[in-house]
């Protein structure tokens, strides 16, 4: 049984490293080729994990081969639009100016129920308010309402806003993130002042402290700390 334990750890780390090397996109929405990769890798890894009569290498070699092929395909699809279209297909417009493109829906085997579900999930209940609904190559639906159906933004109503920028975590569960502190241009003295201002003596009493580019600080004390 110890073999199963060790093999599982080795294969798990190997796959995580491989998927990580493929890039972030691989982890999120899956294109058809990526879905195939995920399914095959899962199966390939499971066999040598359970069957000790099979050498680990016979699981590792196919996985490594698949990852290398996927890497090549990813790079080629990034370089060539034609190759990308061939591999991943093209987005399909299934609603245009409030009208359903039934032929496109049939072509993509996309049912009305699925469309209504996707629209509801995006807060749309009336198809006639949709300018475009596009079935993307990863199977997700992008819904673009008519401009008069879009929620207004600050610029539309001429409201002046200030840019707060990205808040960086300075203290995370009692730990000071020195790199973020320096990135924001602050030092220990500034941090000491912030702690004092919020009634904390040490960073260990803080659950979360963030600072944005405008100098605004968010403070949350650790619960259960006096």
């Amino acid at each position, binding site marked *: 049984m110890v073999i199963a334990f060790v093999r599982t750890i080795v294969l798990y780390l190997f796959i995580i490293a491989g998927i990580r090397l493929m890039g972030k996109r691989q982890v999120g929405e899956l294109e058809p080729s990526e879905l195939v990769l995920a399914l095959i890798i899962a199966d390939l890894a499971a066999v040598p994990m359970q069957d000790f*009569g099979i050498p680990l290498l*016979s699981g590792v070699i196919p996985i*490594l081969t698949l990852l290398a092929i996927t890497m*090549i395909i990813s790079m*080629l699809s990034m370089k060539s639009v034609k190759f990308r279209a061939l591999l991943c297909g093209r987005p399909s417009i299934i609603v245009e100016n409030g009208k359903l493109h039934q032929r496109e829906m049939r072509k993509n085997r996309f049912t009305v129920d699925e469309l209504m579900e996707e629209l509801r999930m995006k807060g749309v209940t009336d198809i006639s308010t949709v300018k475009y609904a596009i079935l993307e190559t990863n199977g997700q639906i992008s819904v673009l309402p008519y401009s008069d159906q879009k929620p207004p933004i600050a610029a539309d109503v001429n409201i002046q806003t200030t840019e707060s920028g990205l808040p960086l975590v300075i203290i995370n569960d009692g730990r000071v993130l020195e790199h973020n502190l320096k990135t924001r241009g602050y030092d220990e003295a500034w941090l000491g002042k912030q702690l004092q201002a919020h009634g904390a003596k040490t960073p260990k009493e803080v659950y979360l402290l963030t600072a944005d580019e405008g100098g605004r600080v968010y403070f949350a004390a650790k619960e259960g700390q006096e």
Partner: protein
Amino acid sequence: MKRIWIALAILLAILAGTLAHSFYLAGFTRNLTVLLEQAEVHAEQEDWETAAKLTQDAYDRWQKKDLYLHITLRHDETDAIHIGLQEVAELIQCKEGGEYSAANARLIANLELMVEEEQLSLKNVL
């Protein structure tokens, strides 16, 4: 582009490694087969001592590569060869001519099948 070259290099390295393994295995088992066949010739001439030496030599060579073979081949196949080598060695000790010949032929066939499985051929791919 660098990633494509790295991926291609990995694929080529895997291909080269697996082909090298096939060639090495073919050569390695050919040597073992020659030793076992020579042992059988000697056994047929009632020269059990030389037959035992040759079989022991084959066994030692197999044992030397045990780790490599265990890593690259199915364990039931390597176990079958290991058991076969011990079986023929024991039959030589007992000077059981008929049974030895059958066991030796089975062992050689197992070795050949094992190598054949690893060769890049249309039959194996299909």
